């Protein structure tokens, strides 16, 4: 009986193992590996878990509903980013920050920790590393530091970044209330905020630099983590990432006015002036529009209700596998066409485009370039997300995820919280995405917590925090960063650095989750 359980557990684990081996060992992208995982899950579910064609059909429909829910955000965030990027506003924001101080550690913190997190809040998908890497290199930091710093620095903001698409995926896949998950997720991510700041400074100048930058890390970290916490626990998690980044930029400006960090006036301020003739206020206007649109849409009930009148939803009947695993009847993921975060992003992108166009910031052919860039980034990401979500859904609906959770809870029981963040990190490492990590492991973590009698909110908080941290060591993101600073083909040293810091931060979060559980 026990041997049969182990064999079935290994079969249930095989789709995940296939994705891991293909992505890490064979350097496959998310789309290719996800498709291979899908085939493995399909075969295993039919042979060992008694899934039939009807179960597989419904699993695909549920999976694609979940995927569309996330992709709506992903595509509209890409459109908004490209609408803004095409005007040169991103360069203007980066250049403005560069002028603030001549303290090297603080420059590194502001660009690599704060600005990269702000970018994660509005774009994601490796954009923080791709944008900040060349900026740091232009300021004289080494190529390796220029990639490793934003990779580590922005990772705390991944869960709530990009309109909280990763957090939304966690809510969608586990079926839990966002407010129930927000507290512990934000506590762990808040702790990670400080750890990322400390790691960035330590990487640059060791203990001496930490001693010098500690007040800045505490002040800016508290502002960012606090803003993120307050917004997420009040239901505004879609804004938590980028508003925390914006608050961090404002806090950084104040910190540079402190005597210890004040500009001596010898900085190459002129170097920053070339980026654009645009003012900082104009450069940030799209993100101000986003706040103006999202806040009432989420908080003002009549408007929220009006926007959420039209929802795409499907009803699914109860299904039972040949081996008796029961999937309850119910509706799939509901998608609000006009009130979804993706819709709010699209309104912002439209208004921003009109605003910048009337001010004359677009050249001929800009619209075509915006769509080309959006399509280029979006198609591969979408294939990756759909294939991953569909294979995770086959695993969930055929009882494979439950069996995995049962095995892990039997083996580790009460000390499982120690591993919970590592599972999230592993998911992001293998798939290159916090969202995919939450999709693949969210249900597994929830069921493990329930079976072991642990707090689901703590375990899922550690899961998404691990997934967020894991993005700093995802090979896909490191590859993007290295390609922008001339390190293509020499990603190993950067990965070596980010893995070291990623493992340490993940272990600390796991330990804190265990302590929280024991208290």
């Amino acid at each position, binding site marked *: 009986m026990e041997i049969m359980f182990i064999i079935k557990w290994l079969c249930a684990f095989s789709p995940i193992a296939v994705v891991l081996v293909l992505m890490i060992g064979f350097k*496959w*992208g998310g*789309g*290719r590996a*996800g*498709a*291979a995982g*899908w*085939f493995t899950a*399909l075969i295993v579910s039919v042979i060992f878990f008694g899934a039939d*064609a*009807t179960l*597989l*059909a*419904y699993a*695909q*429909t549920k*999976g*694609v*509903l979940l995927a*569309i829910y996330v992709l709506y955000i992903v595509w509209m965030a890409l459109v908004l980013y490209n609408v803004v990027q095409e005007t040169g506003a991103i360069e203007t924001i980066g250049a403005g920050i560069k002028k603030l101080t001549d303290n090297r550690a603080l420059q590194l913190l502001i660009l690599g920790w704060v600005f990269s997190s702000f970018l994660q809040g509005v774009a994601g998908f490796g954009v923080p590393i791709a944008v900040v890497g060349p900026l740091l290199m232009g300021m004289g930091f080494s190529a390796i530091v220029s990639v490793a710093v934003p990779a580590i620095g922005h990772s705390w903001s991944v869960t709530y970044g990009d309109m909280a698409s990763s957090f939304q995926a966690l809510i969608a896949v586990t079926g839990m209330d966002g407010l129930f998950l927000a507290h512990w997720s934000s506590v762990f991510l808040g702790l990670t905020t400080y750890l990322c700041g400390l790691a960035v400074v330590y990487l640059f100048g060791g203990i001496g630099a930490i001693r010098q930058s500690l007040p800045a890390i505490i002040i800016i970290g508290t502002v960012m983590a606090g803003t993120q916490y307050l917004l997420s626990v009040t239901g505004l998690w879609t804004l938590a990432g980028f508003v925390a980044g914006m608050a961090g930029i404002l806090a950084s400006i104040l910190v540079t006015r402190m005597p210890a960090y004040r500009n001596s006036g010898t900085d190459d301020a002129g170097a920053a002036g070339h980026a654009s003739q645009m003012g900082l206020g104009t450069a940030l206007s799209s993100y101000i529009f986003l706040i103006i649109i999202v806040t009432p849409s989420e908080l003002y009930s009549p408007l929220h209700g009006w926007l959420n009148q039209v929802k795409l939803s*499907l009803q699914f009947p109860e299904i039972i596998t040949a081996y008796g695993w029961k999937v309850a009847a119910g509706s799939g993921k509901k998608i609000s066409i006009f009130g979804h975060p993706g819709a709010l992003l699209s309104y912002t992108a439209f208004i921003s485009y009109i605003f910048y166009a009337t001010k004359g910031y677009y050249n001929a052919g800009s619209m075509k370039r915006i769509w080309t860039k959006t399509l280029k980034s979006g*198609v*591969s990401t*979408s*294939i990756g997300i*759909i*294939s991953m979500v*569909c294979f995770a859904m086959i695993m969930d609906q055929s009882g494979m995820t439950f069996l995995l959770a049962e095995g892990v809870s039997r083996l580790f029981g009460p000390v499982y919280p120690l591993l919970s963040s590592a599972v999230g990190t592993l998911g992001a490492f293998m798939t290159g995405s916090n969202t995919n990590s939450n999709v693949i492991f969210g249900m597994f973590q929830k069921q493990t917590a329930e079976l072991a009698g642990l707090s689901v909110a703590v375990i899922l908080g550690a899961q998404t925090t691990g997934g967020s941290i894991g993005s700093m060591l995802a090979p896909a993101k490191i590859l993007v960063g290295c390609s922008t600073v001339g390190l293509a083909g020499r990603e190993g040293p950067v990965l070596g650095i980010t893995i070291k810091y990623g493992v340490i931060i993940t272990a600390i979060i796991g330990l804190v989750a265990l302590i929280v559980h024991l208290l």
Partner: protein
Amino acid sequence: MKQFLQKHSKGLKYASLIAMLIVPFLLYSAARSDISWAVNLLLGLMGASMLVAMKIG
């Protein structure tokens, strides 16, 4: 075959993405109507889209 995939990789990628987004809804409709041959056929089509994704990423 390899040459064909390389030549049409962009178009195939778009086609595979569109199929991945549409086929599940057809599957739902076929499963709700208990048309088992259509469910099997559409699952095959979904598999073909995944195969294309696996080949060209």
